């Protein structure tokens, strides 16, 4: 069932053109990105409830994050 909708997510083969080593002096592994960077570069899957519109939900979400990240002005738009 899921395959129909998620059909584009097939396993792909990696073709190496030129081996290259990453430097760890800059950048991050996406899974261990520092929290402040992560929160401004994230995907959050919300479970929307009945009542408020998607727009309201995002507005509430933005407010929630802003309160917790006082002093930061991380833009948070949908």
């Amino acid at each position, binding site marked *: *069932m*899921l395959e*129909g*909708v*998620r*059909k*584009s*997510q097939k396993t*792909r*083969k*990696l*073709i*190496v*053109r*030129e*081996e*290259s*080593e*990453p*430097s760890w002096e*800059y*950048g*991050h*592994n*996406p*899974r261990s*990105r520092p*929290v402040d960077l*992560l*929160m*401004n*570069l*994230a*995907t*959050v*899957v*919300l*479970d*929307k*409830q*009945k009542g408020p519109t*998607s727009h309201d*939900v*995002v507005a*509430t*979400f933005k407010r*929630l*994050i802003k309160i*917790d990240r006082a002093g930061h002005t*991380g*833009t*948070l*738009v*949908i």
Partner: protein
Amino acid sequence: MTGVLVVLTGSATNIMSYTHTFNKEYVGVGEIHSKVKEARVKSAMKELTGEIYQRPPVRSAVSRRLRTREIFYFDLLEMKDRRFLFKVGTESGTYVRKLINDLGLLLRTGAHMAELRRTIDGPFVEQDAHSMWDVAASLELYQRNGDDSLLRKIFLPVENAVATFPSIYIKDSAVASVCHGASLAVGGISSFEEPIAQHEIVAIKSLKGELVAMGRANKDSSALAADKTGMAVAVERVVMDRNLYPKMWR
């Protein structure tokens, strides 16, 4: 409507035009306007599977031109009297309310949608979804104890949102120039995921797997593997902070 709502934060919002194209799955309740046998409903659903024509509703944000959309599956889960529970897998931009109205037309009884819940949006499923309370709890836990375990379960890396697009991994030396909007040359590529069609949307990533930008492939996979020179990807949307990697061009 309830269910899966994918929210992007900060510079991740730059990729919104791509996530809008995700296929979706919905579960909903419909109501038929007079009693009909289950088998008839099932066969009408079958007729509405595959490529269908839809005119966007009067109250919609897009042009009301007739357009085609693909219905991957449309199943009857349960039926009691005139109410029925359905599951439908659709291409993005399908109006499910319209689909149920069309089902009513096919049945010659009329039908309307009573409830709708999105269960899949592209790579994200209902089981990944969190309530606003979970978000609040994760922030509190982090602020109070510095414990980011829950927060990292909720705030997923932006890379997860583009998991359905083929990746092109570029050398560190090419990252900053792509961040500044330059096209990606074949020489900047370390590796890539096959197959890529010419003009296909691809995710340009660093060797560590960080999303740098989204772009349109200028060559297909075989040319990307073999060509010595030329433009590989036209950058459309930059996601990475341009100061994260050092400038290495002369």
